[in-house]
């Protein structure tokens, strides 16, 4: 077996063992943290497909997340659709939206694409605010509490649901990485003009990456909405939902399968430590971390290992 498939196997085994251990041993606080890791990992993987593999700096993750959350919320509260149908439906809506968005803005490159993708969440937030009849507007939206067995049952259920989203995102990324689409995205990232000249339909490949990104982020938003049972536009269209996944992917290494997962873990650990110890200035320190990361570790934590190997 190749080194890559060993790494994959170890990742799967570690994930399964970790999940089992947490379900058996952890208290609700640890489970909540683990659920957040799952959510962060899924979002970082979603961004990584567009931002990492294709090299298109997307800030649309929050838009897909919020759209997924609201679609799932409205379907469950207004139409009383059960969650096993509402979640996939929300993911599909976000994916379709991402595909359409891709057609509109993926011909832009670099900064222009970044800015165009950044405003999408703002537009959706305002639309959600205005469409009071359906979304509840600024008042927010309450979701039905799922009957999955008290507080402890809830914690376990959402830990598993987010874990499943992360696993799904990992699977999609792995499948992309080793196949035709991954090759296409890597070509686009390294030289888009040359990619077109060798006969690659770059528009289709980029749109496919953005659609997968929308699918994952939208599904994650749907699970999140049920988890917190109350969503409002400022919460689910928060720009931090676009920025944090980028940091995680940068931290772990962009354009890889494992990078965003490792990055999500590292990021949450940092966030918890900072939040606990420097409550007033934790956002400032997070900002400082970003600066240091971009300046000294543009290739992520992997570079440390490589440097250690080169030095020793």
């Amino acid at each position: 077996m190749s080194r890559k498939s060993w790494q994959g196997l170890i990742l799967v085994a570690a994930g399964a063992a970790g999940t089992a251990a947490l379900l058996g041993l952890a208290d609700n606080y640890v489970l909540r943290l683990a659920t957040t890791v799952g959510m962060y990992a899924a979002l970082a993987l979603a961004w990584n497909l567009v931002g990492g593999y294709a090299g298109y700096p997307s800030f649309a993750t929050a838009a897909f997340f919020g759209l997924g959350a609201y679609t799932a919320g409205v379907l469950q509260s207004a139409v009383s659709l059960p969650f096993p149908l509402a979640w996939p439906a929300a993911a599909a809506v976000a994916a379709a939206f991402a595909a359409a968005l891709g057609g509109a803005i993926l011909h832009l490159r670099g900064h222009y694409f970044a800015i165009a993708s950044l405003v999408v969440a703002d537009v959706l937030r305002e639309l959600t605010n205005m469409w009071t009849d359906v979304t509840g507007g600024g008042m927010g939206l309450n979701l039905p509490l799922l009957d999955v067995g008290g507080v402890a049952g809830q914690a376990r259920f959402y830990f598993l649901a987010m874990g499943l989203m992360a696993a799904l995102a990992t699977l999609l990324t792995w499948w992309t990485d080793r196949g035709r689409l991954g090759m296409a995205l890597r070509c686009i990232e390294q030289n888009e003009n040359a990619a077109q000249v060798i006969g690659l339909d770059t528009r289709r490949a980029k749109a496919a990456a953005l659609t997968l990104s929308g699918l994952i982020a939208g599904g994650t938003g749907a699970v999140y909405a049920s988890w917190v049972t109350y969503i409002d536009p400022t919460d689910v269209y928060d720009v931090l939902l676009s920025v944090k996944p980028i940091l995680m992917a940068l931290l772990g290494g962009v354009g890889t399968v494992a990078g965003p997962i490792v990055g999500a873990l590292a990021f949450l650990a940092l966030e918890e430590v900072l939040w606990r110890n420097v409550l007033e200035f934790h956002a400032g320190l997070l900002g400082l971390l970003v600066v240091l990361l971009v300046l000294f570790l543009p290739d992520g934590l992997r570079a440390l290992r490589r440097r250690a190997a080169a030095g020793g």
Partner: protein
Amino acid sequence: MGTLLRFAGVARRFGGILALAGIDLEIRQGEIVGVIGPNGAGKTTLVNAATGVHRPTAGEVHFEGRRIDRLRPDQIARLGVARTFQIVQPFPRMSVLENVAAAALFSGGARSLSQARDQARETLAFCGLQEREALPAAALSLAGRKRLELAKSLAMRPRLLFLDEVNAGLNPAEMDAALALIRATAARGIAIVLIEHLMKVVMQASHRIVVLHQGRLIADGAPDAIVRDPAVIQAYLGNRYAQRHGTQATP
């Protein structure tokens, strides 16, 4: 032999500059056509008009009887028109093998990545790059990168290949090797359009030479006839070249 590519009245304007002013030209199956002309004559624009990089402002381009001047570059590439760039365009952080495999995958008819890699290995062997397949493309020398450009184009299994200054910047030994490679490529039945500044290469390799000057096609004929054409001498070759060539041609 049948016509492969046909330019009919192709013009291309960039703002106030007419880079191509109504070009009529046919490329036939299996031939090597040299395109010469001074800097800014419109040679690269001609390639760009045929490969979908620039849409002609007027006129039409047909490939195997099908109009292609409204198609995107990737569509034209998949039809069987490949090109190399004057300034090489590798995927720098991908290995030499992956560079060529990508071309085989998206235009060379490979059904899977492993099949694409097999096809890429064949092409690399043909181009003499097989020992460097694991290197990142950025690690190759200029001559190596030019070879890689050619390997990428060949992996697309084209019917027609534009070579835009593949010999520029090469030393004489590298140039001889490149020339042999171009001939071997043509022997596979691929028509070649050779954009070139080096007269020695064009004269040795081409079956036919066309001359561009200020966006116009001023001559089209056999190499020996071209170098004696007064219009070509005046526009491009200069009298000294004509004299030297003349003394060699007529003993």
